[in-house]
């Protein structure tokens, strides 16, 4: 009897609540009686679940149970009521009103109330026509990928214990640069993999650092990889969580995948209670069109300040970054470990206005995600981005991994802490101050690294990256100073020693560079960059036997390294062994068809042996890779040799544009114009020659001849007399003057 009364009240209460909600929402159904407004599975609940829940909760999905049918939903009704009311499900951490995100998964108050009313009224199925549940493809969402990367060995996950954080290296078997328009991660065991991040390791640094165990997973929540020497900052969030589908990049924003790059799959694994194994696959979809828009990932953090006393329940870490360029913020990824509690990020515009980027009141690493803004958030130059994270290291924080709490600092383990705010921004050059070709990402990188150094003057990563920027900008003195500071912080780092050598070489101190490269090799005898740079330096400075040996060592260690093969070819060519050089260049091109040095070297060999028709396409390919003076010069010579003077002229002009202060292209142009009978053009070019290189008797003599041919005897005489002033015994000038 008591039970019957209770149920009756609950039913009435639920019906009244549902009716009130319908009235609030303006739904015409609100006019129906309270009894008929009781939510049913078929009318209200199935649509809510199909829209918000079943993308994970379907057979074979990442959710631990399916919710696609009425019996299943009835089974889990009370759980659904609990987790929707607490906002645990669907997983969505950002507070509404503090940033508008695409794919906002927060369930509306109306939907939550409907679920509650449905459960409290006894989970009625209803008599409306049954809705068809959505279908979920078991295979690749976008069809067969262009390439599939798969873990070679399954990663075992124990039945119990704390969560695991493992990094799996997936080498990419590509021979040339590809642009990735979409990626899909198939975790293999979706109920075990809680979330995943894909990190690009362009130098395979993680694999090198873990030569024996990289195939079995390298533990660590967060990893650092060596991005190499060239400025090519991370640009995309490659993030997976259980409800993720294929990650399709916006038009014009594919991400670059260079040969030699490893993908590192950073996995958060949750034991399920029984032994499991994970064998993840990554499907990549390429586009032939390179990126036209270049976003960049920026980070705010203050890990140096993360030193949280045991018991401290509101420890605050902050960071700010002033934007040196105008940007659009495309996405945001807040990250902390288990002590993170409240996360705030906002932008203060130059006008003083504040624009919220994100607010999370109850951080939960298990439900972390990358959030993409519904519309790009424009931030003008001079905007200051703020990050403010609050940590709870007390025993009241149920997620605290340490019991009792202990002092916690920044680190990579789950018992350490971290406080990072990543932003994906699309920077825009400032038209008034930037050259059209200048890359605004360089300014962002500088601001970011200078910000890091302000927080920690000994930050060797910031010192290194800032030095690299100075090298890019040609300020080698500054670069050398910063590299030396980085080395003072972390002595013996082979990469930094090598980069210091590069800066010294660029500043003209090739002996200093040589000693740095040698020091780097002493530190790390297999360090490819140092060996390569030393070999190239020896080649440039005529130490051919030494260069040959170094390149041979590299080839022996890395037979597929096209750069080493091409370098060896160049040494052999310089050593006048063209047959040997040719086989090395051909091997380099077999491994990397776009290898510039191999294309040029092979073209030089064919041009020297008169095979101009073979040399021509090689040079065109070399120019497509790198529009440089030497292939332009050589191609002009090839065309001139085959009588294609018009084409020769085109490439001579291209050569001249690439070397505007060099007399040599002008000299060649003067000769070709002269042969073509274009006397005034020839005269103009020859005049340029003597302007740029006034010390050559032959050039003045040639100018005199051209002036004479064009009828200006006075100018001709002046030029010939100038030649004789330089070399009174010059026979050609004497004869020409006499003839004049």
């Amino acid at each position, binding site marked *: 009897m008591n039970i019957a009364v209770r149920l009756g009240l609950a039913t009435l209460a639920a019906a009244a609540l549902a009716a009130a909600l319908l009235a609030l929402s303006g739904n015409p159904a609100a006019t129906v009686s309270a009894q008929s407004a009781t939510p049913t599975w078929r009318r209200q609940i199935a649509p809510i679940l199909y829209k918000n829940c079943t993308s994970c909760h379907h057979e074979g999905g990442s959710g*631990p149970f399916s919710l696609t049918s009425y019996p299943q939903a009835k089974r889990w009704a009370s759980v659904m009521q609990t987790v929707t009311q607490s906002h*645990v*499900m669907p997983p969505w951490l950002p507070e509404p009103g503090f940033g508008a995100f695409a794919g906002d998964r927060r369930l509306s108050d109306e939907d939550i109330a409907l679920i509650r009313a449905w459960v409290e009224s006894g989970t009625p199925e209803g008599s409306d026509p049954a809705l068809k549940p959505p279908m979920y493809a078991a295979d690749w969402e976008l069809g067969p990928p262009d390439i599939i990367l798969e873990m070679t060995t399954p990663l075992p996950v124990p039945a*119990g214990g704390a969560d695991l954080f493992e990094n799996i290296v997936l080498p990419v078997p590509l021979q040339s640069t590809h642009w990735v328009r979409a990626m899909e991660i198939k975790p293999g065991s979706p*109920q075990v993999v809680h979330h995943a991040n894909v990190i690009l390791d362009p130098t395979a640094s993680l694999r090198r650092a873990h030569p024996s165990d990289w195939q079995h997973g390298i533990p660590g929540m967060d990893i650092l990889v060596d991005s190499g020497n060239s400025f090519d900052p991370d640009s995309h969030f490659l993030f997976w969580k259980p409800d993720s589908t294929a990650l399709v990049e916006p038009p014009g924003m594919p991400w670059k995948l260079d040969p030699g790059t490893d993908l590192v799959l950073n996995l958060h694994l949750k034991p399920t209670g029984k032994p499991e194994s994970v064998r993840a696959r990554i499907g990549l979809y390429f586009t032939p069109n390179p990126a036209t828009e270049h976003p960049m990932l920026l980070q705010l953090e203050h890990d140096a300040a993360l030193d949280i006393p045991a018991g401290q329940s509101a420890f605050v870490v902050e960071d700010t970054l002033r934007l040196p360029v105008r940007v659009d913020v495309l996405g945001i990824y807040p990250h902390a470990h288990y002590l993170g509690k409240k996360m705030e990020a906002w932008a203060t515009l130059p006008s003083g206005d504040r624009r919220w980027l994100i607010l999370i009141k109850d951080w939960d690493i298990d*439900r972390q995600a990358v959030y993409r803004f519904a519309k790009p958030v424009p931030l003008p130059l001079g905007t200051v981005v703020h990050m403010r994270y609050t940590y709870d290291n007390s025993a009241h924080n149920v997620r605290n991994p340490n*019991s009792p709490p202990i002092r916690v600092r920044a680190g990579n383990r789950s018992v350490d802490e971290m406080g990072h705010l990543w932003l994906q921004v699309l920077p825009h050059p400032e038209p008034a101050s930037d050259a059209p070709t200048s890359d605004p990402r360089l300014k962002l990188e500088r601001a970011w690294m200078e910000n890091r150094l302000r927080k920690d003057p000994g930050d060797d990563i910031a010192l290194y990256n800032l030095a690299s920027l100075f090298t890019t900008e040609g300020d080698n003195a500054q670069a050398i100073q910063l590299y030396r500071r980085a080395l003072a912080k972390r002595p013996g780092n082979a990469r930094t020693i090598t980069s210091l050598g590069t800066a010294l070489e660029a500043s003209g101190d090739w002996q200093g560079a040589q000693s740095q490269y040698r020091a780097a090799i002493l530190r790390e005898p297999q360090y490819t960059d140092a060996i390569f740079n030393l070999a190239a330096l020896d080649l440039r400075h005529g130490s051919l036997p030494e260069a040959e040996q170094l390149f041979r060592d590299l080839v022996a260690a890395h037979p597929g390294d096209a750069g080493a093969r091409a370098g060896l070819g160049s040494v052999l060519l310089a050593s006048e062994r063209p047959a040997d050089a040719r086989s090395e260049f051909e091997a380099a091109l077999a491994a990397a068809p776009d290898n510039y040095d191999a294309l040029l070297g092979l073209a030089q060999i064919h041009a020297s042996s008169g095979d101009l028709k073979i040399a021509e396409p090689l040079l065109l390919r070399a120019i497509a890779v790198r529009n440089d003076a030497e292939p332009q010069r050589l191609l002009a010579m090839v065309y001139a040799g085959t009588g294609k003077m018009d084409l020769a002229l085109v490439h001579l002009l291209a050569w001249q544009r690439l070397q505007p202060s060099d007399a040599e292209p002008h000299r060649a142009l003067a000769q070709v114009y002269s042969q073509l009978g274009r006397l005034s053009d020839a005269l103009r070019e020859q005049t340029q020659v003597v302007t740029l290189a006034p010390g050559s008797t032959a050039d003045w003599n040639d100018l005199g001849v051209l002036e004479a041919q064009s009828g200006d005897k006075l100018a001709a005489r002046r030029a010939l007399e100038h030649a004789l002033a330089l070399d009174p015994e010059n026979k050609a000038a004497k004869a020409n003057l006499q003839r004049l």
Partner: protein
Amino acid sequence: MPRRLLVLATMLTALACHAQQRPEFGRNTRGQAITSLGGPHTRAVVLFFVASDCPVSNRTFPEMKRLRQKFSSRGVRFWFVYPNQNERPIQVRLHQSAYDPDGQALLDEAGALVRLSRARITPQVSVLAPDGAIHWKPVYTGRIDNRSIQFGKERPQPTEHFAERALSSLLAGRAVAPAIGTGAGCAIVNPAVSREP
């Protein structure tokens, strides 16, 4: 004298009835009735209430196995009780072999152990003490540990081990602390139990 005879006769009848009505606690995965939870030397019985479709009880298996390994040699008998009426023997057999092949499973379709222990969700533990020769009485029914706080929220590892504490107390002859707090879990769905007042 006749009165004495009558009493003796009544006692004999009662004993005969009692011998015929051995309790049935449930069935094993081969469908055989389980009429005894422990032998004469069993000092305690532990019932772990689990469900083959419950992710929370699944994640608790390592802790349940740890307790079995720790206490089996001390006269404690362990049962994995599947209380939901929709569980099928084949389903339970597969589930048990995936999570704990050495564990003893019991299907409680009739709800006898749910009634006895007053378990309401999976996972939950009931520690039983002997109550005569063939009967058992619960001394603790509640959370196994405090790892799970609510659905979707849990500690990295438990800081309180309630089941272990209850067992240790019982075996040491100390008073068993009553259950405190409620953990997250999946509701036990068994109409045989919920039909009763």
